[in-house]
């Protein structure tokens, strides 16, 4: 799941996910050519459904791993 210090916005054209860090006020972007493989819903990534999908879809798994490596997602859920 997304770490508590972040809010995010998933661009409807799948061009990227913008993250805003509430503690520092910093904005960062994550892009990936297969972002549409995640489950998007009204400007948000549905993290629960995306994690569920990752068990069957390697691309989703790679994207979530990258998001985790970049510090946006809680690590333990990916490892479980």
């Amino acid at each position, binding site marked *: 799941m997304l770490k508590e210090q972040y*809010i995010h*916005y998933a*661009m*409807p*054209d799948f*061009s*990227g996910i*913008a993250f*805003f860090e*509430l503690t520092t*006020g910093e*904005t960062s*972007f994550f*892009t990936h050519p297969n972002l549409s493989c995640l489950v998007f819903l009204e*400007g948000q990534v549905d993290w629960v459904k995306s994690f569920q999908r990752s068990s069957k879809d390697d691309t989703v798994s790679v994207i979530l791993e990258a998001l985790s490596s970049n510090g946006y997602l809680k690590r333990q859920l990916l490892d479980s």
Partner: protein
Amino acid sequence: MIVNIGDFNFQFFNLPNYVKRELYKLYESEHRSEVNESIDFTIDLETSSFIRRFFRRQKIFMLDGQRIFNPVAYDKCLPSVEWAMNWCIGSYDHSKILIHASVVEKNGKAIIFPASQGSGKSTLSAYLGLKSWNLFSDEFAVIDIASGFVSPLFRPASLKNNSIDIIRSAFPNAMFSCVTKGTQKGDVAHVKTMNRLHFNSLQPAKIAGVVTPKYRKDSEVEILSLNMTQALSILIRNSFNYSILGDIAFKKLCTIASDAEAYAITYSDFDDIESTLHKIIR
């Protein structure tokens, strides 16, 4: 002298007479000794020193007792009055999202031009404002946090160097201020694109397009479509107060970036780019 530019009231003291005359012309302001409305910013143009009253006269721009610029030569005060108004809004108004951009509107839809200096955005927006578009601002996109709509400001367009002659030759009957030569930005003049009566009829508008224009002499028009992430990045990069407003601005700019069309356009001909802009607001 009080200058109303729509959402903001400025009160000026000790303006040189030639600046007053120009401001009357550009803003249709009335000289009033009594203040019946709230003043957002009070700027006093103090004389710098006794000697400077007789030799190379200068004015010091003071906002609430604080000097905001280096002393300005007496005959170069008009552009500095405009820049002082920009500085006040950009530095102190955090009730709205402020983007460094010019804004034009037509049929209730606005296009904003966030771009760096030298991109030709002011020339382009002046041209459009003197044609059939409404120039909402050539400096700020003033965005309401709740609605995401951009508000009009009653300001003239600021022109520099070659742009002055380009716009003057295209619109010889337009109302220009005097040209101030040799400022830190070169020669500067202002052109009025609408009268107060017309301005009063304008309403805040939805942002339909985010366009970064780039003037390149003798080039064909080139249109590069930008994705929503690029549009958001441009909006954030050009915001004056994003870091102050924080997550509120983040959420609103995300919505604007995902609702608007975004392009990077290189052009040399105003009519070419105007036809492209019409497609955005169709």
